[in-house]
């Protein structure tokens, strides 16, 4: 567990404290980065840039508790991911006509693993995946998403709706493939 003294040493650019923070929060932040960019190399690049900003910005960060510290680091990684996605030409929003409503069982999510969920989220188009990550997992509002992605709130809502339908469909297909193979 990271102590308050570690945060203080981190403010003083202590290399040992930086290493300690990286070891403790590295995997947690990498998972977030991977959900946005879905590629290992890009996720690692995001980690490098994010930790450099964390080490530089810790001087101006007002430390209250570990949860706020974690939320602050998480926000840095998300912002870096959004910046990277904006730079890439692949970042675009999916047309709404492509999404089809698929009914999903209540306990179907308990049957699939976290690894499967990561893979299914990664298969979503960039626009869907980004809005879904921001709203469903990070807890952003549609207004914040619209500001971050420079789209309207309605577009954010519809993109989220279509992302959800597509993901449910993928989960259902995964469940059916498992059933056909006799896993479940």
């Amino acid at each position: 567990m990271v102590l308050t003294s570690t945060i203080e040493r981190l403010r003083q650019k202590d290399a040992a404290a930086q290493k300690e923070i990286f070891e403790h929060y590295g995997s947690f932040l990498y998972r977030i980065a991977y959900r946005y960019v879905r590629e290992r190399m890009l996720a690692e690049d995001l980690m490098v840039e994010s930790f450099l900003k964390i080490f530089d910005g810790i001087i101006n960060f007002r430390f209250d508790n570990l949860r706020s510290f974690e939320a602050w680091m998480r926000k840095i990684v998300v912002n870096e991911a959004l910046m990277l996605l904006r730079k890439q030409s692949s970042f675009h929003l999916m047309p709404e006509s492509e999404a089809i409503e698929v009914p999903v069982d209540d306990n179907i999510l308990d049957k699939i693993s976290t690894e499967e969920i990561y893979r299914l989220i990664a298969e979503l188009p960039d626009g869907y995946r980004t809005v879904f990550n921001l709203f469903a997992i990070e807890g952003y509002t549609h207004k914040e998403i619209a500001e971050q992605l420079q789209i309207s709130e309605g577009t954010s809502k519809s993109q989220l709706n279509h992302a959800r339908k597509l993901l449910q469909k993928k989960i259902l297909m995964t469940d059916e493939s498992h059933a056909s193979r006799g896993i479940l």
Partner: protein
Amino acid sequence: MQAEEFYNKIRENLDNSDFTPEWNKSEVWQRIERKDQKKAMPLWWKAVAAGIVMASALGGYLFFDNKAPLADKTAIKKQVIAKPTQQVSAETSTPLAEAPESNTRNKISRPAHKAIVQPVENAEPEPIVANEIANEEFDNMVTTEGGEQEFSYNNVTSRNEPAFVRPMPILFRPNNNTSRASEKPAEPVKRERVAILEIPEEQEDFVIVPKDKKKNRNARLAKQTEKIPEATDPNKPNKIWAFVKQSFKNETMPADSTLK
């Protein structure tokens, strides 16, 4: 399944799991360390660059400060080497002015500057004869040794040698151009003496030629012959003859008596 429940289920699944996609943790940390050092480098480089600039500025100041006296020495050496254009028969040395005291820059030990040597002509002033006066006047008539009266300038007559010749003034000019050393010295300019005659109006020994009354010239000549019988005497010198004789004598003399 409601949308909110779906989102919550996925969130719980992700938060409660320790699953992490594969990644190279140590390599990422090394990259972070390298980039962190590179970010710190510009601060060092700024300090190093500022130090280099300061050192170069100080070195330049000291270099040019020490170079100024060297330039003075070179100028003095050039001045000494320069050859004079005139013949050097004697030398006079000009002592250098003493350096002011209590000057920090002059406290630095330096080799003494060579004295500036300037060539001069060997010109010994001749003793001034008692006859010479600063504002000399014409002695129009003098009595020669033979008892004859003659028109003279400064006691110089057609029959005696000049007692004193005023030495020509010697001009000293700075020898600025060393290239002139190879040129031949200019020949002395021949000077001519010009005597200004003041013809007396009424002198018994001289024949005055009238100018204004040319019409009655013969009559006036006859009248003068009656008055002054010596005027017709060819052996009697007149003042024009004295002037001519004096002129011939002057031409035989060298223009510059200092040259031998």
